[in-house]
C-alpha cells in the first residue's frame, strides 16, 4: 500500500457554538479518486476549506508528502499542489479560456500552452478555441475549464466540491472518464465531494463518510461497500421515538397531479409526480437533496409556474396561478432556505414577521404599524421567540429563534396546507423538539402537511406516509408503519425492490 500523500489527523473546527468538524481524520493516496460523502452540513466543505488553507483548524495536524505543516494558507496550499473547484465557479467571465487558465502565478504551461491545452481538451472532450471568452461557455464547459485550471496551476491534489450538481447525465459520464484518465495517466489525487450515492459508487475507489462533523467511516473500499451501508452511515442511527399516529384524517386538502418540470438547464427535474394529502395527515418526502424536492415545493407554492400537471388546493385548481392565490386558500410554505428566501436579510425583525399576511394590516395604501406590532407580539408570546430588539435586523436573532419566527409566522393563521422543507436543519436539539411539536400540533388541528426532509429520524417520527424521491420521480410510496430504514435507504439510492 502506498504512503498517504496527505494526512489530516484529529482536525477540529468550530464556528461559534457549532462544531463543524470534530476530531476528523482524512488520508489521501496518490493517484486515486477518493469519495467524500455526507449530507448537507455534515462538514465536507469545512474540511476541504481546511485542506486548501482557507480555514485554520483549532486542533489537529496536517502532513503533506511526509512533511508536517505548521500553518497552512491558500498560497501555501497551492504551492503544495492542493487545488479546489468550488461549487460557485471562480472564472473571469470576460476573459478567454487561455487567460483564465494562465492567470495564476503558479501556472506551469506558460510557454507550451498550446500543446498542453490540446492534450487536456482531448481528455476533457472540450472542443473549443482557447481564445473563446468564458461568458460564451455552457455550464458544463465552464466546469471543465475550472478543473483544467487546477492542472495548469500544477495541482496534484484536486478537491472537487459537488462537481456534478450542474451537469447533465451525459456530461457526468464524460467527467467520470476524464477524471479516471487524470488519476491514471497524470497520477492526480482526486477528492470528489458529493451527497449523491450513485456517483460516489461510479467514480471512486475509496470512500469516506461524514456525519454531523465527524468522520464516521474511513477508507472504505468502494467495490466492497453496499448502498445500504453507505445510506446508514450517512443518515446515522434512526431513533424509534414516534408521535401518536392515531390522528384523524379528513378530506383531501392538497393534490398534485402528474407534475413534470424541466429546468432552465434543460434537466428533467420532476417527472410525473403525483401526491395527495388529507386534512390531519403528514406526508413525508424522503430523498437525498437535489432530487427534485425544492422544485416540487416551489411548484405547489406557486413560485414556479411553467410546469406540466395540476395543483389543487382544497378542491380549487390553482395551476398557473401565483403565490397570492395559495395564500388566499391559507397555504403556508416554510422554505428550506430560511435566511434569503423565508426571511429577508438586512430587513428588521418586525418587517420579516409580516411577510405572509402584511396585507391584512393594510387599509388601502396604508400599512398599520400597530397591527404589525400586535401580530408580532402575539408571535413572540405564542412561540416563545427571543427577539431583543424588533427594529434590529433579522440576523440579530439566533438560528433557532429565526426558524421559530418563520414557523410561527406561517402557522399562526392555522393553515389548511403546510409545506415544510428541512424545518430543523442546523438547529440544536431543543429547538428541533419544539419545531416537531409545532408540526404535530398543526397536524392535530387539521392541516395537511407536506414534510420534506433529509433527516430520516424526523420523517419516521412525524409522517403518516412516506414517499421517496429519486431523480425527479417518486420511487416509493409507503405507510410509515410498514417502512424500514433499509427499504427507504435503498429507495433513496435509486434501488426500488
Amino acid at each position, binding site marked *: 500500500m502506498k504512503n498517504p500523500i496527505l494526512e489530516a489527523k484529529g482536525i477540529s473546527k468550530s464556528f461559534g457554538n457549532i462544531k463543524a468538524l470534530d476530531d476528523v481524520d482524512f488520508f489521501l493516496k496518490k493517484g486515486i479518486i477518493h469519495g467524500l460523502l455526507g449530507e448537507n452540513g455534515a462538514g465536507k466543505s469545512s474540511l476541504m476549506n481546511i485542506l486548501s488553507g482557507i480555514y485554520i483548524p483549532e486542533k489537529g495536524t496536517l502532513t503533506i508528502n511526509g512533511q508536517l505543516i505548521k500553518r497552512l494558507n491558500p498560497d501555501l496550499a497551492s504551492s503544495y499542489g492542493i487545488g479546489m473547484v468550488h461549487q460557485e465557479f471562480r472564472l473571469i467571465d470576460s476573459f478567454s479560456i487561455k487567460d483564465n487558465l494562465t492567470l495564476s502565478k503558479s501556472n506551469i504551461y506558460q510557454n507550451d500552452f498550446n500543446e498542453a491545452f490540446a492534450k487536456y481538451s482531448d481528455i476533457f472532450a472540450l472542443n473549443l478555441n482557447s481564445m473563446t471568452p468564458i461568458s460564451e461557455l455552457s455550464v458544463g464547459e465552464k466546469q471543465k475549464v475550472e478543473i483544467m485550471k487546477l492542472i495548469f496551476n500544477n495541482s496534484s491534489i484536486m478537491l472537487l466540491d459537488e462537481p456534478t450538481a450542474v451537469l447533465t447525465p451525459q456530461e457526468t459520464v464524460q467527467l467520470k472518464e476524464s477524471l479516471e484518465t487524470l488519476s491514471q495517466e497524470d497520477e492526480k489525487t482526486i477528492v470528489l465531494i458529493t451527497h449523491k450515492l450513485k456517483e460516489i459508487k461510479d467514480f471512486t475507489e475509496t470512500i469516506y463518510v461524514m456525519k454531523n462533523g465527524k468522520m464516521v467511516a474511513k477508507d472504505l473500499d468502494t467495490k466492497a461497500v453496499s448502498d445500504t451501508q453507505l445510506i446508514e452511515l450517512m443518515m446515522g442511527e434512526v431513533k424509534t421515538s414516534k408521535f401518536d399516529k392515531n390522528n384523524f384524517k379528513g378530506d383531501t386538502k392538497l393534490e398534485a397531479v402528474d407534475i413534470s418540470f424541466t429546468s432552465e438547464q434543460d434537466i428533467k427535474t420532476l417527472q410525473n409526480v403525483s401526491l395527495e394529502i388529507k386534512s390531519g395527515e403528514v406526508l413525508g418526502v424522503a430523498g437525498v437533496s437535489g432530487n427534485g424536492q425544492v422544485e416540487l415545493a416551489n411548484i405547489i*407554492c406557486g413560485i414556479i409556474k411553467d410546469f406540466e400537471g395540476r395543483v389543487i388546493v382544497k378542491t380549487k385548481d390553482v395551476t398557473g396561478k401565483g403565490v397570492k392565490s395559495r395564500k388566499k386558500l391559507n397555504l403556508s410554505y416554510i422554505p428550506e432556505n430560511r435566511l434569503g*428566501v*423565508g426571511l*429577508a436579510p438586512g*430587513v428588521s425583525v418586525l*418587517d420579516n414577521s409580516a411577510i405572509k399576511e402584511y396585507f391584512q394590516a393594510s387599509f388601502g395604501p396604508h400599512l398599520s404599524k400597530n397591527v404589525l406590532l400586535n401580530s408580532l407580539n402575539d408571535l413572540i408570546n405564542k412561540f416563545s421567540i427571543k427577539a431583543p430588539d424588533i427594529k434590529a435586523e433579522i440576523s*440579530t436573532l439566533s438560528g433557532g429563534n429565526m426558524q421559530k419566527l418563520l414557523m410561527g409566522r406561517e402557522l399562526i393563521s392555522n393553515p389548511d396546507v403546510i409545506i415544510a422543507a428541512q424545518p430543523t436543519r442546523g438547529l440544536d436539539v431543543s429547538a428541533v423538539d419544539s419545531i416537531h411539536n409545532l408540526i404535530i400540533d398543526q397536524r392535530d388541528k387539521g392541516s395537511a402537511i407536506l414534510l420534506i426532509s433529509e433527516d430520516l429520524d424526523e420523517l419516521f417520527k412525524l409522517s403518516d406516509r412516506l414517499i421517496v424521491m429519486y431523480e425527479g420521480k417518486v420511487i416509493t410510496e409507503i405507510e410509515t408503519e410498514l417502512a424500514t430504514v433499509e427499504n427507504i435507504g435503498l429507495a433513496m439510492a435509486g434501488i426500488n425492490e
Partner: protein
Amino acid sequence: MNKFIISKKLYRNELATFYSFLIGFLIAIVIGSIILLIQSKNPFDVFSLMLKLSIGSVNSLSNSLNKAIPLILAGLGIAIINSVKLWNIGAEGQIFFGAIALNFVYINTSIENSYLYILLLLASGFIGGSICIFLPALSKVLFGVNEIITTLLTNYIVFGLTIYLINGVWKDPNSLNFPAAAYVSESVYLPTVVGKLSSGFLICILFTLIAYYIKDKSVFGYEMRIAGGSTLTAVYAGISAKQKSFVAMLIGGGFAGLAGAIELLSQTHRVSTGISQGFGYTAIIVAAITGMRPLGIFLVGSLFGALAIGGSVIQTIGVSSYISDIIQATTLFGALIAQFFFSYEIKRVKDD
C-alpha cells in the same frame, strides 16, 4: 501574532446616522478652517459672515431655503428609489427634464385660472422627471442593466437636449443672443410666502411628508423594503420586485422633475442652463448623509442650501465660494467614515 478583523455590529445606535452627520460636519468645519488659515483668512470671521448672510435675516434665510428646495426634493426621490436598493444618479437630468416638460406644456396650453395653471405646470414637471427615468427603469427591470450607469448617462443626454432647445427651437429672440428659452408669464410665477421665500418651500414640506409616508407607513414602502432586502424573499412573498423597482424609479424621478419645475417657476422663470447648478448631484450627498431618511433629508438639505448661499456671499471678501463645496463634500466623507464605525467594530483577535 495579532490579527484585526472587521465585523458588523448587530445592534446600532438609533441616532447613529445623526451623530455621524454631526461628526462629519465638525470634521468639515475643521478642514475648512485649515484651508482658510492657509489662505491667511480668519476662519471665525469667514464662518460668522457666512452664518449672518445665510440665516441672519428673513431675506437671507429665505434665500437659503429657496436654494434647499431642489436639494430636498431630488434627495427625497433618491431615497425612495434606494428603498429597493437602487441608486439614482440621474436627478440632475431629471431636474432639467422637469423644466423642459413644464415649458413644453406651457407653450402648448393655456388656462385662465393661474392657480390651476400652476398646478398643471408643476404636475408636468413631475411627469417629466418620471419620463426622464423611464428608459433606465425599463432597461433595469427588463434586462437588468445597471441603473447607476444609465441614470448617469441620461444626465448628459438631457443636458445636451437643453442646450439644443435653448439654442434652437425655444431660443428667445429677445434674449440678446443669450441661450435661453422665453420667460414664462408672470401670472404663473410661484407666489412668495414670507420675504423672498417661495411657496415652493411649502410644496417641499408636503412632499417630505409624502416621501416619509411612502417609505415608512405604506404597503408599497413595506413591499419595497422586502424586495430591497432579498429578491428571493419577494418572490416567495408574492411581491414583484421588478414592479416595485419600476414604480419606485418613476416616483423618485418625478420628485426630481418637480424640483426642476419649482426652480423654473420661482427662480429662473425660463429654461436655461441655470435651472440646476449641480443640485441633482448634491442631492445624492444629502440623501447618503441621512441614510435615506426623508426627515433627515429635509434638515440636511436646508443646511446645505444655507451653505451654498453662505459660500456665494463670502466671495465679496475674496474667499472662493468653493469653500462651501469643500464643506459639503467633507461632511459626507466624514459622516460615511463615522457611520462605518457605528456599524462595524474592529476586533483584535489572537490566533495560535
